[in-house]
């Protein structure tokens, strides 16, 4: 049986009234009807729901769905020294938007951002909760840099900050940490910088397992070098990034993989048997027992009911793959 995991985000709201509590809560906070602490309680109820759904379906390694994140960029970067957040910018090729971090001076880590949320999530999950962070090179690429005038310099300082954050998560008990670098699917040439940045993060990981995840496209051009990046596990989007598949099938991987074979950006349902068959094509080339099956990226681009359905397909596919493994 191949294990299953998710990439990060989970839909915050669904169609039922109970599943829309967070949306109502934020609207009430905006109107001044509740205070921040009350909203946080609602957020945590939502995190419990999200964990319950993943636990019930039987996902082996879950996340808190990044429910408290405004977006993938400003949630962490916005809390660093010398960073403010500005107007909305389109997030890659999605129809979602992030508040753009604006860097005015040397960035530095101030205090843990994610550790409390992680502890809460782990206390409410039957299985390990993966801590997920946006990687420094993606953060640097999507920010507005008014200080460094050098993506590399900014990325490396951000890497130091992400490293501190990883250290605080590991101290809180996280045994699985994932760094997302979707920017590699757009600028494969950034791999050298990603690796250099990961070195700074790796020194804080202690005994935790460090995953490097790329999504929103393929990494075919850099696949062979990606294996040398200082991470324990590599996560790959094999749907939008289907061009990675032939190189992966040909060269295999010395590191365990997260195989993002379930389309997390379209509602069309995959045949679990076909997904299992595809995963098993890697038998012998990849250590499938140490690897995971997953959606191709975070699930927040799907409605909640469809996201659940995708996770059921994922789970069934993993079980079917187990029969042949």
């Amino acid at each position, binding site marked *: 049986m191949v294990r299953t995991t998710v990439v990060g985000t989970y*839909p*915050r*709201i*669904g*169609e039922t009234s109970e599943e829309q509590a967070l*949306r109502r809560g*934020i*609207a009430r906070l*905006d109107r001044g009807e509740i205070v921040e602490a009350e909203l946080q309680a609602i957020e945590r109820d939502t995190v419990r729901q999200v964990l319950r759904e993943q636990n019930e379906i039987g996902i082996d390694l879950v996340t808190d769905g990044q429910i408290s994140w*405004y*977006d993938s960029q400003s949630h962490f970067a916005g809390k660093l020294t010398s960073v403010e957040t500005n*107007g*909305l*910018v*389109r997030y890659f*090729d999605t*129809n*979602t*938007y*992030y508040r753009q971090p604006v860097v005015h001076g040397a960035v530095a880590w101030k205090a843990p951002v994610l550790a409390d949320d992680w502890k809460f999530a782990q206390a409410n999950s039957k299985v390990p909760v993966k801590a997920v962070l946006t990687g420094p090179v993606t953060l640097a690429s999507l920010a507005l840099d008014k200080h460094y005038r050098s993506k590399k310099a900014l990325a490396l300082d951000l890497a130091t900050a992400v490293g501190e954050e990883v250290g605080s998560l590991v101290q809180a008990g996280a045994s699985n940490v994932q760094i997302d670098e979707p920017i590699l699917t757009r600028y494969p040439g950034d791999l050298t910088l990603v690796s250099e940045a990961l070195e700074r993060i790796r020194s804080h990981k202690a005994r935790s397992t460090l995953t490097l995840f790329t999504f929103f496209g393929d990494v075919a051009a850099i696949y062979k070098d990606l294996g040398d990046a200082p991470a324990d596990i590599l996560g790959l989007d094999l749907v939008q990034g289907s061009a990675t598949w032939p190189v992966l099938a040909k060269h295999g991987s010395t590191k365990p993989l997260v195989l993002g074979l379930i389309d997390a950006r*379209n*509602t*069309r349902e995959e045949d679990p048997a076909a997904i299992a068959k595809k995963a098993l094509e890697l038998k012998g080339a990849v250590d499938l027992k140490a690897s995971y099956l997953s959606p191709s990226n975070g699930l*927040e*681009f*799907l*409605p*909640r*009911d*469809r996201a659940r359905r995708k996770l059921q397909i994922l789970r069934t596919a993993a079980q079917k793959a187990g029969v042949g493994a």
Partner: protein
Amino acid sequence: MNALLTTSVGSFPKPEYLTRARTKASKGELSPDGLRTLEEKATSEWIRFQEEIGIDILVDGEQYRGDMATYFAENIDGTEISGLVRSYGNRYYKKPIIVDELRRRGPISVDWFTFAQAQTKRPVKGMITGPYTMMDWSFDEYYGSRADACFAFAKLLHDEAVALEAAGAKVVQVDEPALSTRFDELPLLVKAVGIVTKGLKAKTVLHTCYGNYNEIFDYFNKLPVDQLDLEMSNSGLDLLDRFKREPLKKEIAFGVVDVHSHVIEPESLIRERIEKALTIFSPSKLLIDPDCGLKTRSVDEARIKLRNMVAAAHAVRTAHGLT
């Protein structure tokens, strides 16, 4: 007069009575006819307001729409509507799902155009959600190819554009907020918009927003429309230098008011923006409007922003002797 004409991008905020009515209607506590009456009331109010402040080319304000893609999809065969998906912050929308061959079952926005145009002698824009945006914002369980889905939308949206023209639309606007989503697909967008606008005698406009304009600049003159409507106050004022070097061979509707900010731009600031635009574009080819639809603002904010915009445009006209 034909200088510095003022217009709007499309949507206006819904008055509270309409927002409440929509909630009721979604729960089945208000009949479709009851809702329609209030949508018409709100539309008439916005038409009157635009006339009162002196806007030259009007919009119907899209009081009957939730989301621009979903509204079109609901009126096209071969689609279903998904559950809620997040856009940003606390904003969610329902996405179309293509489940079968796409077919136009009848007029989509023509009735509302006709209703709005009947209330004013000034031109009202006919509004079409563009084929590329319809494709990009839909889930696809049928075509399996982005190009095929996009062209299927383009063909039926052409029929809609022809119907708007036949109903009297002098201006037809194609909204493509998704234009800058994937640069490698810009040729697809140009082709698809070309299918929509082919053979139209009405003035054609393409609106887009949130763009990395530098990446798409080379396509501006290739877009098969007469006028480009761009968000300039929020992200694009830097773009002017580039227009100076590489002139636009079309009319431009120049966004001078940020639609995502509660901050009300004073008339003086808007005047400065218009003056800057005038250093590049001739007044007969320059229209003045907000960056994008104003639906995310409150009714009061939208009204003040529009009032200041029109006042600024009129002041600049006077200053340049364009009246």
